[in-house]
Structures are given as structure tokens and as C-alpha cells.
């Protein structure tokens, strides 16, 4: 369409310049209308650009950095692949759980022909603490320690200081050092699986061009001490420099501790694997962000479309006059499209620039609501700005195109007619289709709920949504009439004439009202959907835990990253146990293992004490007498097995570092510990014997309830660092807190769409006022006060916003109910509709319309009665 406009412009230059003057004059004359449209475009584009910048920040440069950092590696030796990990619990959040390479294996490669250098990499848990003992949060997914590797095989290069020597020196990544405000020579405390270490920063290193590995915040130790410090029982990988081929190296390195052959990959494949991991992990986040950008864009596009439809309708006579005096269809089309282009270019350009500001605002907002996956500074690339601009311009032109076509099809004769208001509610066919789609949606939805199947459920939601779009004008008419009828029944028509005028005005042009309300419907529907989703998840989690928790206090790890990590120093439970008034304590430690090739989280507790702190609901066997080599498993796991197992049978568990353990089922439990579902629970001494000591994930404490005891525990927890103390009640609630964080994030994202929708209501109202200047003048002349005019316009906008939010609310709740009944039935999700929150959403939606109308209402009330004479 742009090309059409351009070619028209060049082909008929002299006359087009006349048309251009008509266009620009029209734009200027209608600047208030186009200001709001421009604002809608601007907001959409700013948000989209911000989202593009964020997605680039999350994923954009990671692949380049990974290639650069690993460029010197020719071959990589890793453990054998064991199976899929549970909850991305593998190294660096990878989906595959691998065994380890035996310590010292790299020595077997030095004599191999074609190997110039081979370095074993040991990794383990290590995280720098700030001066208050709080683990650093740099927004990465894992925190690890590693041996420092110099030269070509190292991924990092020193930008300051020197490599670490001995057990009391470390090199930090630049991002960690920045976050903690540390420089070379500063002391720092490092939390590891064996406790905390007081060390000195001897160097700062960069990962490729960025300050940190994209996945992990790494603390580097001296190669000589790293394995000890990190309590590593094997190498994570061996990196090889040289021309040797993979087969030769594979033959030389032998097997993993389990007897499986080690995996040898080329540096290129290994690098690609890292990139794929990052992309698959970030693609969820970027998709999610772009989804919200899309929602905002749809809301914005609706408004642009609406504006042009109304503008063309209002200018029917003017455009027909142009046709009468000889303007071609193409010129009329062109003049509308030029208007769209001017608005699109200006608003998109400002919007893209404003997007940069928006990014910083969003990052602060995310921090405020406790989301840290975006820590670090945004990566602003010109391609994000250009893409935001281009999408905004194209969306503007595309949404103006249909109205422009309609403008071009206006017959010259229309110049002689009074402008006709398109009051057609909707054809019977259109309403019929809408009803059919809705019924179809409801039917499919019921099927989905009853059958617990997501395909009909999703189809039903989609069908009903399209039904709402198609049936919008019909809904507007019915809504206005029923509200009017309902009010008319209770109140004398004469006493509500202002309200009645408003209600009638709202349905004066049902198509226009419906598409204005649609933007709000969309926003409110999504908000309602996510609210029900969050409430349901929260209700499901909290109620289970609240029932089973028997301790009165819970000490939990500071899991500020997206994946919960154990951060409680291993000796804190002993300290608490020694406090006067503590009657019972049990600590949960977790690790990963595999059974039947599937990754699991395996935990350990003091099985003698756990019952007094957490009711696991033993249904068979005995937890208290759980012997070495015995395991407690949950019934939910046993139910998934094809051949049922009972107490006394054995489960084969594969630990990546320690190998295969045959565990005898000593107890079967009904309840699962939070974060450990389904349960695989050893006694602490058993698991420590298998994988060695580690950090505690959670400590459950039962006390005599005295305040002195609580205060002493509080002191111990804050002194140890890496842990948070909760009362039982607060703990159960906090398990839902990630849901709150998520909900807040979703609300913030959808707020943009709602704001755009409100701008749309303001815009439609402004245009309606402009269209009815004479009528408003007449009302003023026959005695409507300014206050009555304002009330009328506000009521009119409220009709749109109430309709938009009620439809959105109803659809959102219904869709959430269907979706979670169909999907979550098996998971025991309790569907919960938070009535009060919903009422607030509906109220906010309705009030938003009144706010949106404030300015047009004021403008309308200032119209002089003389307008009736013009």
C-alpha cells in the first residue's frame, strides 16, 4: 500500500501536491483526534521496543559471547548422558543430566598425538556473599565455582589483577564484582557446599565481551585447590586444544565412574549445545515478553483502525466533494494513507525512542516486584529500535488500509447527502455467527472440562473469543438496551434523561463502540485469566503445605534466582538444635539422581525427627526406623509405575557423581515436601554417605514457643547468612509468593494494554464529541448545564468501559476455568476465583472509562450553545 501511495504521488505530482495539502490541512485541523491515536501508537511501539530490547538483553548477544569464549576449544570430553533432568536441575540448568569425568582423566590425554593441551574443569557450588552475608544476585540461573584456566582453553580473560593462587584467593567475574562493588585486593566471603570461605579477590575476569557467563555467575579458584574447595568428586568436562580427532580422544579417556564411555564432542558442537541451551531457556522468557508486546500492539491497532473508520465516516462529505471535483479513487485512498503514514512515522519514531526509557522503567519495576531475571544493563541495539519503528509504522498503515479503501469507494453523490451514521447494529447473519461461535466455544469448553482434554478446551476458548469479536456490536446494542431497560424499571425516565442520552449514545454506533470496548475486553480478559490462574496455583500449593507442616518455624534458602538453590550453611541446623527451647529440628538436603532414565530430586531428612516437624503421611512401612540404604517414596510416584512396587522392593537410583545405588523402599508416604514432589527421601546419614555433605535446602524447627527461643534462632539465622526465617504460616504463604511475583509481572505487562485501551476510549469519545458538536450545542441551548454535559459524556464512556470489562471478566474467568479444569484436573489444581480481586478488576475497568472521558467531557461542556446554530 505504501508503494501504491508513492507511485500515485510521483505519477500525478501537480495534483497530488494539492491532495497532500488537503491531507496535511486535515491532519492539522483534526490534531486532537490524531494526538490520541498517535499516543496509542506511541505507547504500543514504546512497549514493543522495550520488549525487543529486553529480549535482546536476555538472549541476543549470548550466542556471540559463547562462540567467542569457547573459540579456542577443539574437543570437549564430558560424562555420559544419563537422562533428562528434573526441573532443569542439571549443570547450568541444562535439560540433560550427565555423569562426571573421573578426576585426573585429563592426564591421560597429554601423551596423545595431536593434543596440544587438555584441561579438566571442576565445578561446584560457590556464590559470593555481600558484606551482610546475603548471596549476590546477578540475574543468572546458577552460581558455580570453577578452577581458573589460563590461555586459549579458558573461557574468561583477566581484565584486572592476577590468577588465584592457593585456597584463599579467587577471581570474580566483572558482573559479580560490579554488583558487590569489589576490586582487586578486596576481601570477600564465598558460600560453598562445605561452608563459607573468607578469600581475597586477586583478579576480575570478563566472559567474552560481557561481564559474565550467560548462564552462571562463576567464582574461579586456583586449579590446584578447586576440587577440594568445591568438594568435587569428578570433572564436569575436559577441554582439549589440538588436532586430534574425537575417536582418538575417546579411546584415550576411558569411562565414567559408572562404566559408561565418556562423550567426546567437537568444540563447535559443544558451543552450539551451549547456545541451544541458552536459547531454549530464554525463548520461553522472550516469547512471554513478546506475547505482552503483541497484546499491546493489538490494542493499539484496534484504536488506529477505529480512528480511521470514524475519521472516514466523519469526512464522508468532504471526501465525496474531493471526488466530485475530480480526485481519483487512488488519490482519496492515497490521502488517507498519507495521513496514516504521517501519524505512523511520527508516533513510531517517538515511540521507539521512548522505548529506551521504558526499558529502564521496566527493569526498575521488575526489581521492585522481585523479578531478577533481567538484572544487568539493557543491551540497546539499533535493530530493536528499527524493528519497533517498522512494526509500528506497518501496523498503522495496515489498520488504516481498510478504512482508506472504504474512503476511496465513497461515491461523489455522497457530497449531496447528509452524512449517514452507520447505526446498523450488526446483521442477523453476523449475530448468528457470533452466537454459533459462542455456543460452539461453550460446547467445546464443557467437553474439554468433562473429558479433561486440552484440545477441545483450547478450541472452545478460541471459538468463544472469536465469537466475542464478531458479536461485539450485537453485545453493545443488547448491553445498552438492557442497562437502559433495567434503570428505566427502577427510575422515572425523566429523572435520568442525562443517563439515558448517554446510554443511547453508546449504542448509537455499535460497531464503533464494540471495537473501542474490545481493546479493554482483551486486557481485562487476560488479567482475569492470569488472576484465576495465580489464585488457583496459590490455593493448591498453600493448602497442601499448610496442612502437612507441623513445625512452627521454617528456615529457608535464599533462592533469589529463578531456580531454587540450597544456600543454608551446613552447620546452621546444629547451631539451632543447640538453642534452648528448640524441641525438634530436621533439615532437608537435596540432590539430583535418575531412576529409569528420568531425573529426580532426591532429598534427605533426619527421618527420626521429621514427623514432628512435617507430616509426610506414612501409609506403609516406617519412616522413623528408616535404615541405611532404605528410602521413603511417595505414593504418587508409585502410581506412575507400570509394575507396582511395595515396601521391601528396591529402586535403582543413578547419581551422576556417585553412581548406582540400590535403595530399598522402607516407607511409603502420602504427602510431599515442598520442592520435593514426588518424594524420594533418605535419612541424612545415608545421602551424605552417597554424595557427600552439602548445603541445606530447608530446616524445619519446632520450639516451645517462647519469644527468647525465637529471638535466639533469629540471631543464629541472620549470623549464618544464606537463609530466611519464616513462621509456619508465613512459610506456607511464601510458597505462593513466586506466584504473586509472577502475577505482579503479568499485571504490569497487561497494564500497558489497559492504558492503551483507555486511550482508545478517550479517543472514541473525543471523536464522538467532535461529531456531535451541533447536537451538544442544541442540548446546551435548550437547557443542559455544563455539569450535565460532562455527566452525559462520562456516562457514555463508562458504558463502553463497563461493557469492555464485564465481557473481559466473564470471558477470562470462563477461559481460566475451562483451561485449568482440562489441563490441571490430574494435578489436583483447585480452581479458585478470587471474588474480591475480580470485583476490583471490574470496578477499575469501569472507572477507567470515566477517567478516559474526563478530557473529552470537559471539552464538550465548554462547547458554546451557539454551535447549535452553525
Amino acid at each position, binding site marked *: 500500500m505504501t508503494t501504491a501511495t508513492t507511485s500515485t504521488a510521483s505519477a500525478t505530482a501537480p495534483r497530488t501536491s494539492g491532495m497532500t495539502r488537503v491531507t496535511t490541512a486535515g491532519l492539522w485541523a483534526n490534531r486532537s483526534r490524531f494526538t490520541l491515536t498517535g499516543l496509542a501508537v506511541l505507547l504500543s511501539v514504546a512497549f514493543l521496543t522495550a520488549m525487543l530490547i529486553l529480549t535482546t538483553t536476555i538472549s541476543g548477544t549470548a550466542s556471540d559471547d559463547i562462540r567467542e569464549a569457547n573459540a579456542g576449544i577443539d574437543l570437549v570430553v564430558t560424562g555420559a548422558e544419563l537422562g533428562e533432568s528434573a526441573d532443569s536441575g542439571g549443570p547450568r540448568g541444562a535439560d540433560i543430566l550427565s555423569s562426571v569425568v573421573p578426576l585426573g582423566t585429563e592426564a591421560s590425554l597429554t601423551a596423545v598425538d595431536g593434543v596440544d593441551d587438555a584441561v579438566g574443569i571442576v565445578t561446584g557450588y560457590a556464590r559470593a556473599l555481600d558484606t551482610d552475608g546475603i548471596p549476590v544476585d546477578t540475574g543468572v540461573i546458577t552460581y558455580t565455582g570453577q578452577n581458573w584456566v589460563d590461555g586459549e582453553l579458558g573461557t574468561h580473560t583477566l581484565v584486572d589483577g592476577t590468577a588465584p593462587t592457593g585456597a584463599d584467593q579467587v577471581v570474580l567475574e566483572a558482573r559479580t564484582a560490579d554488583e558487590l562493588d569489589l576490586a582487586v585486593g578486596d576481601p570477600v566471603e564465598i558460600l560453598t557446599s562445605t561452608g563459607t570461605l573468607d578469600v581475597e579477590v586477586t583478579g576480575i575476569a570478563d566472559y567474552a565481551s560481557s561481564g559474565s557467563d550467560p548462564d552462571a555467575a562463576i567464582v574461579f579458584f586456583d586449579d590446584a585447590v578447586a576440587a577440594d574447595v568445591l568438594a568435587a568428586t569428578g570433572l564436569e568436562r575436559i577441554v582439549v586444544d589440538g588436532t586430534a580427532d574425537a575417536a582418538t580422544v575417546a579411546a584415550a579417556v576411558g569411562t565414567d565412574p559408572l562404566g559408561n564411555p565418556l562423550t567426546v564432542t567437537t568444540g563447535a558442537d559443544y558451543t552450539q549445545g551451549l547456545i541451544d541451551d541458552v536459547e531454549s531457556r530464554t525463548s520461553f522468557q522472550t516469547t512471554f515478553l513478546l506475547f505482552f508486546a503483541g497484546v499491546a500492539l493489538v490494542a493499539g491497532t484496534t484504536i488506529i483502525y477505529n480512528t480511521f473508520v470514524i475519521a472516514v465516516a466523519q469526512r464522508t462529505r468532504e471526501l465525496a466533494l474531493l471526488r466530485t471535483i475530480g480526485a481519483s479513487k487512488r488519490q482519496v485512498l492515497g490521502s488517507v494513507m498519507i495521513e496514516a503514514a504521517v501519524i505512523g512515522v511520527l508516533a513510531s519514531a517517538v515511540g521507539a525512542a521512548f522505548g529506551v526509557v521504558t526499558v529502564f522503567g521496566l527493569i526498575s519495576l521488575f526489581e521492585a516486584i522481585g523479578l531478577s531475571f533481567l538484572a544487568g544493563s539493557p543491551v540497546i541495539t539499533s535493530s530493536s529500535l528499527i524493528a519497533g519503528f517498522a512494526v509500528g509504522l506497518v501496523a498503522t498503515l495496515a489498520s488504516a488500509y481498510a478504512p482508506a479503501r472504504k474512503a476511496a469507494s465513497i461515491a461523489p453523490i455522497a457530497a449531496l447527502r447528509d452524512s449517514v*451514521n452507520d447505526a446498523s447494529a450488526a446483521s442477523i447473519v453476523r449475530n448468528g455467527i457470533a452466537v454459533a461461535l459462542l455456543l460452539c466455544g461453550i460446547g467445546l469448553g464443557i467437553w474439554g472440562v468433562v473429558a479433561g482434554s486440552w484440545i477441545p478446551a483450547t478450541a472452545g476458548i478460541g471459538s468463544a473469543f472469536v465469537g466475542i469479536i464478531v458479536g461485539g456490536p450485537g453485545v453493545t446494542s443488547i448491553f445498552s438496551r438492557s442497562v437502559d431497560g433495567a434503570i428505566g424499571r427502577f427510575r422515572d*425516565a*425523566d*429523572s435520568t*434523561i*442525562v443517563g*439515558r*442520552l448517554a446510554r*443511547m*449514545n453508546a449504542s*448509537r454506533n455499535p460497531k464503533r463502540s464494540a471495537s473501542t470496548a474490545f481493546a479493554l475486553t482483551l486486557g481485562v480478559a487476560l488479567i482475569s485469566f492470569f488472576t484465576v490462574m495465580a489464585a488457583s496455583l496459590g490455593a493448591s500449593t498453600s493448602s497442601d503445605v499448610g496442612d502437612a507442616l507441623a513445625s512452627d518455624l521454617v528456615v529457608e534458602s535464599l533462592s533469589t534466582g529463578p531456580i531454587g538453590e540450597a544456600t543454608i550453611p551446613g552447620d546452621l541446623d546444629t547451631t539451632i538444635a543447640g538453642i534452648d527451647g528448640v524441641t525438634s529440628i530436621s533439615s532437608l538436603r537435596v540432590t539430583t539422581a535418575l531412576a529409569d532414565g528420568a531425573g529426580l530430586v532426591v532429598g534427605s531428612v533426619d527421618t527420626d525427627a521429621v514427623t514432628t516437624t512435617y507430616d509426610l503421611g506414612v501409609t506403609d512401612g516406617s519412616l522413623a526406623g528408616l535404615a541405611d540404604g532404605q528410602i521413603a517414596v511417595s505414593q504418587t510416584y508409585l502410581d506412575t509405575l507400570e509394575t507396582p512396587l511395595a515396601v521391601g522392593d528396591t529402586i535403582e537410583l543413578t547419581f551422576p557423581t556417585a553412581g548406582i545405588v540400590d535403595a530399598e523402599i522402607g516407607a511409603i508416604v502420602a504427602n510431599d515436601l515442598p520442592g520435593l514432589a514426588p518424594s524420594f527421601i533418605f535419612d541424612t546419614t545415608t545421602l551424605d554417605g552417597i554424595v557427600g555433605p552439602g548445603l541445606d535446602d530447608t530446616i524445619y524447627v519446632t520450639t516451645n514457643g517462647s519469644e527468647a527461643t525465637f529471638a535466639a534462632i533469629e540471631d543464629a539465622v541472620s549470623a549464618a547468612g544464606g537463609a530466611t526465617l519464616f513462621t509456619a504460616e508465613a512459610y506456607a504463604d511464601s510458597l505462593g509468593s513466586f506466584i504473586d511475583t509472577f502475577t505482579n509481572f503479568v499485571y504490569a505487562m497487561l497494564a500497558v494494554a489497559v492504558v492503551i485501551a483507555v486511550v482508545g476510549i478517550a479517543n472514541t469519545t473525543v471523536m464522538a464529541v467532535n461529531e456531535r458538536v*451541533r*447536537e451538544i450545542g*442544541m*442540548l*446546551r*441551548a*435548550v*437547557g*443542559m*448545564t*455544563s*455539569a*450535565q454535559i460532562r455527566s452525559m459524556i462520562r456516562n457514555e464512556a463508562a458504558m463502553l468501559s463497563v461493557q469492555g470489562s464485564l465481557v473481559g471478566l466473564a470471558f477470562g474467568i470462563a477461559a481460566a476455568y475451562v483451561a485449568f479444569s482440562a489441563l490441571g484436573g490430574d494435578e489436583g489444581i483447585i480452581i479458585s476465583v478470587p471474588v474480591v480481586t475480580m470485583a476490583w478488576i471490574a470496578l477499575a475497568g469501569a472507572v477507567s472509562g470515566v477517567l478516559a472521558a474526563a478530557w473529552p467531557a470537559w471539552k464538550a461542556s465548554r462547547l*458554546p*450553545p*451557539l454551535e*447549535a*446554530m452553525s
Partner: protein
Amino acid sequence: MTAIAPTSITAPGGRQPANADLAARLVNASKIYGSGDSEVRALDDVTVGFRSGQFTAIMGPSGSGKSTLMQNAAGLDQLTSGSAYIGDTDLSTLSDRDLTLMRRAHIGFIFQSFNLIPTLSAEENITLPLALDKRRPNPETFDRVIDVLGIRERLDHRPNELSGGQQQRVAVARALVAEPSIVFGDEPTGNLDSRTGAEILEFMQRAVQEIGQTIVMVTHDPGAAAYADRVVFVNDGQIVDEMLEPTRDRVFDRMKAFGR
């Protein structure tokens, strides 16, 4: 109805007319648009009164200021200087709200382009000024007005279901039903064919003769002006002449004089 003595007007120096029996009047009224070289005196020190129960037509060439005169007398616009009165109330002393309430209660309007609310029925349009005041029409007045205008059958219709003449009858009913002390008409027959226009003018005349309604109407049509009791001629923002018991031909001749 017997001939009504002319109200004293156009006295040099703006002698204030006696306010007895005057439904509306302008005193030393000036309305100036723009300033400096582009200054336009739409009204130039006009003093005029409109007696209760009289049907007055205001005539003049295009741009003479006749519409400005009526708009200011009706409180739709603000004078640059001088005063406009409805009854004994000086409109310039009223707030916007009080002025609105004054229009609602005491002034009726008939517009050239009917100006009905398309979403309301004919009856709702007629009672609109009263409804804005949360009042109901006096049933006798309502019945008399709609019967005289012959629109009883059309009360439930929307304006777009009515012909132009029917719409203007509804507009006339709207102006009359609140029993205002004065009705202002702005070319009320300008958009109607001559036969329909004549009907409307007859209704207006009957309203004056039968219920003593005061009507002031701006028109450029000598035929329309002939229905009035009195014609006031405006030119260059000043009242230049008046005529009692006008006929179409006399008004036509007088208007032709402006051309010279």
C-alpha cells in the same frame, strides 16, 4: 388580536425602553469580533425590546447582524458591551449555570436544522428541556401543543422516521411545551419546502394568537416575515427600520432597498 403599538426603539443615545410587558430586550448592545483593522461590529449599540405575546421577525441582508442580535437576546452568546434582558434579568450578570437554567426554564428554541436528538423518540425530544430539569410537562399544555401540531401519532417515532416537516413540528413542540416566556427561531423554515414551511409558520402564529406565546424569529424570507406581527430590519449591526402588520410584498420592497 389588535395591532400592537410599536415599542420605542432605535432612539439615538440608546434610551432605555420601558420594560413593562417586554419578554426580552437588548440595551445599548454591541458585539465586536476581532480587533484593529479586522474588527467587525456585528451589533453596533442596539437597543430593542420584544413585547410579550408578540410575533417578531428579524430581517436583514446576509451579514447584517440579525442572527447575532437574536443569539445575544437569547443568551446564547456574550455581548461585548451593553445588556441583554430576559424579563427583568440581566443575562450578563448570570453564571454559565444560571444562564443555562434561564434558557431551560424561560426560553424555547427552534433551529433551522431541526436539531433533534436522533436516539430519542419524538415525545422524549419534546419533553427534553423539562426532563433536564426533572420536571414533567403540564399535561394540558402537552396535549394542546401536540394536537395543534398534529404529531400525536408520531410520538413514539425516532426523528429519522419522520419527514422534515414532522421533525420541525416536533422541534416546535419542544420549544413550546415547557411554556417558555419567549421562543427564538433561527430560520425555522429555512430547510423546509414552502408548503411545509407555511404550516410551521401558521402553528407559530397560532401559538402567539391563541396562547399568547412570545416569538422572535430570524428569517430572510419576506413570506415568512409576513406571518409576524412586527418586522425589525437590521443592517450593518444596527436596527434601521421596523414594520407593523407586514405583508410579503411590503417586506420584499423594504428588503430590496438594502440592495441599493
